[in-house]
Every structure is written in structure tokens, then in C-alpha cells.
């Protein structure tokens, strides 16, 4: 569910029957390239546009598993899988992924460490939340406010995510259309994500993605320090899987690891992660990560097939793959200039940057969404990789 050429390519190569459900815009291309396709308006829900109707259309293709590729298709896939598996809770679980407040409550009940959080409805609500947080942190007069994050309940990744460092920030950074949303305390520590491929309720393969800077850069597999925590992380992950009752598919939670080795849960998604994570993961571990993502959703997948497509649970690749997303640093750009140092960089793998259209004005960033392209690196030393990614985040490619 959702349009992705690399996923379609994987399905073709794996020789698995599939049908793509996506917006009518893609129908022409699909027809031209013999891609089985059902056109559907995901953003419309009515008497004539609903999961029962969609299921009927898909029955013609013999579909029995729905796989959500993007955030917007998570409920649709949940609804279809509820029907296929005759289990209404599958849909409820999909809602769990789509409502960050509900997700946190579930995690809290299950004993995962989370920040303080609350649903807020207006700026006043955020200010009060910050006040209570300040009290709890025993703020003394003159001390800085505690940091608060606000996030929309149902947006992917970093879209609409704002960090508020003070009461004044609430006034200047929050917009009326942000509300209602989730407010939560700032979680300290190193951020990373996990991609757990689950079948039959068990984690069959787990990747750890080390975030060098959220929204800018990450690499796979995890560096040496994070790797030393892998067993603990795996345990926490299985706890999350059990708690959420996930049987099939892949989850992509974000975690924070403090210096005292405490793990806090950030949030979790069940679609293809952003930041080209599965691409890096596939390169590093040498497998078809997108194909595996899709196949894990299939309850009928055999043990043999599963082992064939997934790397062993304890695999540790020797080559690290990382990327940095490139954003223009100026408001007006006219040239793409690949820095000399990149040309001499032996870790450099590739980039897909293109020059701007004559003279281009840059609109404000929404989330971390509009990067101009990605530069990929590969190499054997994770520390060097970290350095490189941090460095290139601040290099101007657009002038």
C-alpha cells in the first residue's frame, strides 16, 4: 500500500505475487510497466471509499496480506489485515501506531521508560505542561525552563516536531494549527533507531541505526559503543513487540540511551523508515531489506523462506554505510558545487544531488522533509564515519 519503485522491483525479483494500491496518479505508469495496480484515494473515507470496498477490489488479485509502506497507509493496511486475519484488534494496533499519545500510554503501562507526556490543546496547555515539568524538576528562580517537545499525533518522523526551550518559545514557535498534539519532556541521551523484522511474534532480525544527527545523518550497523548494548536493546525490543502484540511485519522505534545506560522509548512506526535506512541496512548486511520488510508481513511465509531472506540475528557487518542528507544553507541558491574534499574522500560512495533550477529560493523547512539529495559513504571505521557525517552536515553544497 503506497507507491515505491524499489519495493515493486524487489517483489518482481522475489517473484512474489503482488498488487500495488496507490493514488490514481500512478495508474498510467503502472499500466505502461505492467505493474498490477489498484487505484485508491487513501485520503477519502466514505460509504464508497473504505476497507470493505478496497478488499473487494483486491480480492480479484487474490490478495491476503496488506503491507503499509508509508505512514498514511498504516490504518488502511491494518483494516485490511483485520479482515484477512479475522481479528479486529489488528486494526486497533494500527491505530496505536498512528496516535503518539496512545502509543506512549501503552509503552508506559508495559513498563518501558518514557518521558512525561500529555495531550495538549492550545499554547496555554503547553505552558502549563512546561510549568508542571519545571516544578517536578525542582526549578529555582532564574533557572532555565525544562525543554518540551511537541509533535502531531499522527505525522511521520520529524514533520511538525518542535523543540521548545522556554515559555517564550511557546509563543514564538507554536502555531494554532499545531493543536491538538502531544507534548513531552525532553529525553536526554544518544538517539538511535531499531528496525526489527518480526515473524510469529518473534524478532527474527534486528538492525540498529546510529543517528549522528536526527534528520541529517545516520549509519549502519551501529558503532562500537552502541553495539556493546545490543543484547539489552534486543531484550527491550522484544518487550516492546510483546507489549504491542505485534505478530508480523517490521517495527521502527526510536530510543534514547543515556550515559548511565538507561534506555528510554521515544516512539515507534511500522512503515518504511525515512532517511534511506532500509537502503543502508540492505547494503551493510547484504540482503534485500525492502523485500524482507514486505515478506515478514505474510503469516504464511515458511521458515526456509524467512531464513533465506533475513541475515542471521547475530550478524555483524564489517563495512559501515552512512548517509547525510543535504539541505541548502542559504535562502537563494544558483549553483551546486561538490566540495574538493569530497572528491578526495575514500569513504565517499555516491550522491544524487542535482543543480538548482537557475536561481532558486528556498522555502522554510517543514520537518526535515525537503532535502535536496543524499550523499552516501562507506568505510570500515565507525568513528571516522561519525566524523565525516558530522562534518558534511555543515558543508555547503549549494551556493
Amino acid at each position: 500500500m503506497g507507491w515505491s519503485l524499489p519495493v515493486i522491483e524487489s517483489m518482481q525479483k522475489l517473484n512474489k505475487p503482488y498488487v500495488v494500491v496507490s493514488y490514481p496518479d500512478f495508474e498510467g505508469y503502472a499500466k505502461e510497466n505492467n505493474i498490477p495496480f489498484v487505484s485508491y484515494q487513501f485520503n477519502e473515507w466514505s460509504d464508497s471509499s473504505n476497507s470493505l470496498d478496497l478488499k473487494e477490489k483486491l480480492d480479484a488479485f487474490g490478495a491476503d496480506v496488506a503491507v503499509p509502506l508509508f505512514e498514511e497507509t498504516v490504518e488502511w493496511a491494518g483494516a485490511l489485515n483485520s479482515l484477512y486475519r479475522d481479528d479486529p484488534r489488528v486494526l486497533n494496533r494500527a491505530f496505536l501506531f498512528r496516535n503518539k499519545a496512545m502509543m506512549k500510554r501503552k509503552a508506559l503501562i508495559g513498563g518501558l521508560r518514557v518521558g512525561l507526556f500529555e495531550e495538549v490543546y492550545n499554547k496555554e496547555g503547553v505552558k502549563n505542561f512546561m510549568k508542571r515539568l519545571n516544578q517536578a524538576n525542582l526549578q529555582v528562580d532564574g533557572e532555565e525552563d525544562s525543554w518540551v517537545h511537541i509533535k502531531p499525533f499522527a505525522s511521520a518522523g520529524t514533520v511538525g516536531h518542535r523543540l521548545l526551550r522556554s515559555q517564550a518559545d511557546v509563543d514564538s514557535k507554536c502555531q494554532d494549527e499545531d493543536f491538538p498534539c502531544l507534548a513531552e519532556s525532553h529525553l536526554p541521551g544518544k538517539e538511535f533507531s531499531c528496525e526489527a523484522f518480526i515473524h510469529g511474534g518473534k524478532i527474527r532480525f534486528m538492525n540498529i541505526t546510529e543517528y549522528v544527527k536526527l534528520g541529517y545523518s545516520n549509519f549502519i550497523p551501529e558503532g562500537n559503543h552502541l553495539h556493546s548494548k545490543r543484547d539489552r536493546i534486543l531484550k527491550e525490543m522484544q518487550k516492546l513487540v510483546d507489549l504491542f502484540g505485534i505478530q508480523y511485519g517490521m517495527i521502527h522505534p526510536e530510543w534514547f540511551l543515556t550515559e548511565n545506560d538507561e534506555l528510554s522509548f521515544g516512539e515507534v512506526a511500522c512503515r518504511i523508515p525515512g532517511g534511506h535506512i532500509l537502503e543502508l541496512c540492505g547494503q551493510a548486511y547484504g540482503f534485500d531489506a525492502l523485500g524482507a520488510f514486505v515478506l515478514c508481513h505474510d503469516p504464511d511465509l515458511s521458515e526456509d523462506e524467512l531464513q533465506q531472506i533475513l541475515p542471521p540475528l547475530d550478524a555483524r557487518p564489517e563495512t559501515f554505510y552512512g548517509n547525510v542528507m543535504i539541505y541548502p544553507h542559504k535562502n537563494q541558491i544558483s549553483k551546486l558545487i561538490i566540495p574538493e574534499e569530497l572528491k578526495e574522500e575514500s569513504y565517499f560512495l555516491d550522491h544524487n544531488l542535482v543543480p538548482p533550477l537557475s536561481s532558486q529560493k528556498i522555502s522554510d523547512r517543514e520537518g526535515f522533509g525537503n532535502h535536496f539529495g543524499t550523499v552516501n559513504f562507506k568505510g570500515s571505521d565507525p568513528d571516522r564515519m561519525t566524523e565525516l557525517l558530522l562534518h558534511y552536515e555543515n558543508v555547503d553544497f549549494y551556493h
Partner: protein
Amino acid sequence: MQEGVISESNLASFEELFENYVAATPLTKREKAQKIMGQLDTWCGKLEGIREVYDKVPDLTEAGIFKDSPWEHPGKLIPQLVNGTYKSGHPNSTIELLSELRMLAILEGNIAGSAAQKEEADSYLQEVLVYNLEFVFNEPQEETRLVMSEHELNKVHALFQFILEKIELSKVKSKLVEELTLICEQRPVVTEKQRRIIALVKEKIELNPEHPADMELLAFQRAIYKPSPSTDGKDHVSYGKLLQTMSIASLEKEAKAMGDSMLQFGLVSTYQATLLLHLVNKEYHELIPVCLGLNPTGVARFNEFKDFVCYLIVQVIHPFNAQCIFGLAKMLENGIISREAVRSGLYNLCKITIHPEVTNRILKSTRTPHEKVSPKQYLIGALLRILGQPLGVGQGNNPTCQSARGISMWSQHAPAKLIHMVQTAAVHNDLSFRFEGQEISYSTTVAGLVQNLDHHLDAVSVTLVPMLDRVYNEMMRRATGRGEDPHKWANPGLYGQWIQIGFASAYDYLSNAIVDFDGFIRVFYAMCHPQFNGGHRLVYPNPVGIFITSAKGEMLGFHAVSLLRVEEDPSGNVRAYFLNPNNEGRQDWGQEIKPSVYGNGEIHGESSLPLYQFAARVYAFHYNNLEASSNMDKIPQAEVEKVKKIAKDSWGKSYTWLEIKKQW
């Protein structure tokens, strides 16, 4: 990692990307190809990198890298489009580069092709090469410099170096003749480019004197390698020995041949310097004007200042500093040698000690300095060339049109001032100007437009330009914030009192718009059009700001030229004749506006355009504020509308236009 070699890991990265590409289905092939391009692009800045890429081209082609792209069929590609594609940058420029390498691979048999396809590939590459001589010699045009990054320039330069090593140029003779004519007709001060093309032809093409097409190229060859029959098969040393044995009559024949040869294209050979020095040493004074190819005025001046000119020749000229002979000859003809101040200035210059920093710059600009020629000789030689050929001054690959314009203006109207400036700058590596009652000196100002001076210049320019650039920049800085274009004050500040007080700008600083363009054009016509300015000629060069536009007429940037004269051309159209310091003969400003450099009444070094076309690119100029406004009403509205339409349809799209009237 070894300098200049693609590292093992980058080669391995290519293999990985290539495998992914080959394994991809048509759905993601394009995306994977883009990644390969990203890696290859980084290799292409150096010749070694191009070589590596060339080795991969057969595999890349086989794998379908050109499939479903405009480059798919080698037989359908058009050489004229290549230049524009390179200017559009990566990834297009990288695919274009691969496409050229594929042609070469076809030609060399690394990719299978029929005899006819090989033939086609050969013709194609030869044509591409000739259309891209700016890349071959790394001397980009104004437009190219504005749109291409340094890496992109390095990339295409490396590519064309590589191709040049492998192909011949026998199929593009007439194009090479045209190219050489376009350059030589301008009589540039720096003659490196035409010498390089001539050397290239010598190396690459077997010329047949019987064949009419070859005769023209042979004429260029002769100017440098065989200016007289007696030089055949000799270098300048053995020619010098031969001269010792010659009779006066033979020497006269030699002198006549040398003079004629020099006048044909403005190019001087090592032999001519040898001969001239011989004539001076032997005191054959009556043969010197012949050897210099002088007209009667020049001969008269030579006779008047014989001793001084001979002194200069001995001081400055050497077989490896020969080109200044042409400048010296023109200087005698244009008469500035008659000025006492000029002679004194040149005499003083022969006595100076040059600052080590300036010496470095001069030697760098000379590329292959000869041990027998001193930096001072190079400097004075360059000065003679500038004084003799003021319209041949170029800016090279630098954004310093303003400085070049100044040097050209001074050499015509204040030669002694220019010489003195050169002397001060050369000795002290510093220069001061008066600006609105205050002093501005090079040594105390911050950087100007030039970050890294390209030393592809004459020795006078490398001495002065870094200073002029900074001083001008400082004047601009001080004049900024007055609500008007600071050029109004900086131009007279730098160039001097020749610049008119009135200053017209199409762009209005306060409203950030083009205001009263009608009035602007009327003032322009009233300033220079003989039909509307009372039949007057222009007296001093007028520093004019113009919009540079692409071949599609799109706004690219700003440029400084000097308007020299406005007159009827041989076919009766009123033309603007101007100095464009970027010395480019093949310009295309879009909308059919193509400045010509010869054939339309131009003096060597001038560019020209029909006046209305020139007017349609002007955004600022100086005028006599007491005079022009009374003539404004004489200009027909239809003419104004014609200019305005061209302007609005090109650079005008980048601005807001306000029709309100302004007081001029």
C-alpha cells in the same frame, strides 16, 4: 592516497554501484545510474580520472547507461548542443562527458562499430572540439564563467585534453580558420590563445600548400614558424647567424617580409626579434621602420626619436619577448611616443627594481619564462603592447572587466599616467588613489572581486589589476548607501576626470525596480546617437554597465564595457562600437543579438552591435548632464519602444518595471 589517482576504495565503490545498476530492473535503473554519475563526477576533475572513466565506458554503454536518454543513439547527437549541456552542470554534464568518451571508444574500436560509425564518431568529436575551444584551452567566455563552477570547468578541460591527445583535426580546417580569424582580427595584447591553436594545427594536421582550404591555415603557420623564406628549417639562433652573412639588399628583403607578416595577423615571430636586434646593433636605421612595418606617420616618428626607440629595443626586445614589437610599431603610429612624459616614463621604467611579489606575478603570467628575459623586460614589453594596442587589453579569466577597461582608457588618454602607475605598482607593490578628498591605497583595503587571480594575462595587468580591483571595490564600498548606483562616483574616482558628471541608471535603488526606461533610453540616444546629439562624436570612452544574457536571452549578470563611438557602419546602419574586455569573438546574447568583432567597420579590438541592440542591454552610462536632457524629445517613440521590447523580453523579466517619469 596518491595525488591525482583514483583511490582503491573509490574504484571499489564504482564496482559496487555498477553491480547494483546492472542488477536493477528498469524501474530503478535511472536512480542507480544517477548514483554512478555522482561517483564518476568526482573522478573527472583530473586527466587520470578521465582515463579511468574512459576504461569503464564500454561496460557502462553495454549496461545501457544511455538507454532512454537523449544520448541513446550516437548517430543522432548534434555537436552544437554539447557546449550548452556542459554549462547545465552535473548530472547532465557527466552524461555528456560519458557520451563524448563513448564516441572516442567507437573511434578507437573499444566499442564495436562499423567503418561508417567510426567515421561519424571522428567527425563528431572534431566538431565538438572546435566548438569548445574555450574548454580545450581553459579560457571560458563571460557566460561560461558565470554559470559553471570550478569543478565543472576542470572536468571539461580534462576531458578535452584527453580527447585532443587521441584525435586529429583534419575535418575542421575551415572552422579553425574562422576561429583564428575571430581572435586575430581583435589584435589582442595576449596572443597565447591563437598561438596555441596554431601550434595545435601544426601538430595535428598535415597541410597541403596546393590545397586552397589549407592555404589559409598555412598563412597562420607562416606568421610564427616561417615569416620569411630564409627562416625555413632554422631556429632563431641559426637565423641570426645567417643574418651576419647577408647583404643590405637581402636584409631589406627580410625586413620587408617580417613587417608584412606581422601586419597580416598581428603576430610576431622569434625571427623578427632576431632581425630587429641585428638591424639595431648594425645601425641599419633605415631598415628598422621596414622591419616594424610602419606607415609614413610611424616612419616620421621613428626618425624623430630614433635613438630612444633603438634604446628601448635593446633594453626590452628578445626573441622570447618578441610580441611587443607589434605594440611598439603601433605605438609609433598612434603618436603617443611624441609625448615627452611618455618617453620619460618609459626611460624611468628601464631603471627600476621590481618588487619580489610583483616579479612572482609576472613570471607566473608568462607561463614559460625564458631565463634570458628579465621580469622587467616582460613588464615593459607588455606595456608597449598595451600602449600600441589599447583595445587589445583583456581581462582573461577574471571578473575584472572594470580594471581592464581602465587600463585601456588610460593607455589612450593618459599614457604617462598609466606608465607611472605601472612603475609605482611594480616597485612598491602598492598603489594609491584620491577619492573624494581621501586616499585609498591597495595595501590598506580588503579583498575585491578577485579571489584568485587567473594569471592568464599580460604582465601589466598582473601587476595592476589586483590593486585596481581592490581600490575600485573600496570606492564602491564608500559610495554605497547614497540611494543611487555607487558606480556614479566610483567610475570617475578610478578612471579620472574624463568621465562625465551625469550618470543614468535604468535601475532605481530606492524602488528596487526599472524606473522610466523610456527616459533612460532617450538620454542614452541623446548622449551618443549622431542624429540626436547634434551630430557630435563621442570623445572619451564612456564606461557602460550592461546586462549579460545567455543565448536564450536570460539574465546572467552584469558586465562592464566602454562605449567608444557610434557611427554608421558600411551598410548604413547606426552601430555602437565598444570595447569588451573579455576579448570574445563568438558571443551570443540571445534575441539574435550577436556582437561582431570584424566585418562591420570595427577597428581592431572593437566589438560592435546595431545601436538599438546595444541599448537594449545597457543599464548604466555616463552623460553630460547639462546637454542631454534638451535632446531627449527628439528621439522617436517607435525607436524607444523597439529597445524596450527587447529589454523587457530578456533581462527585464528579472525586474519589476515602473512607468512613472523621472527627472533626468
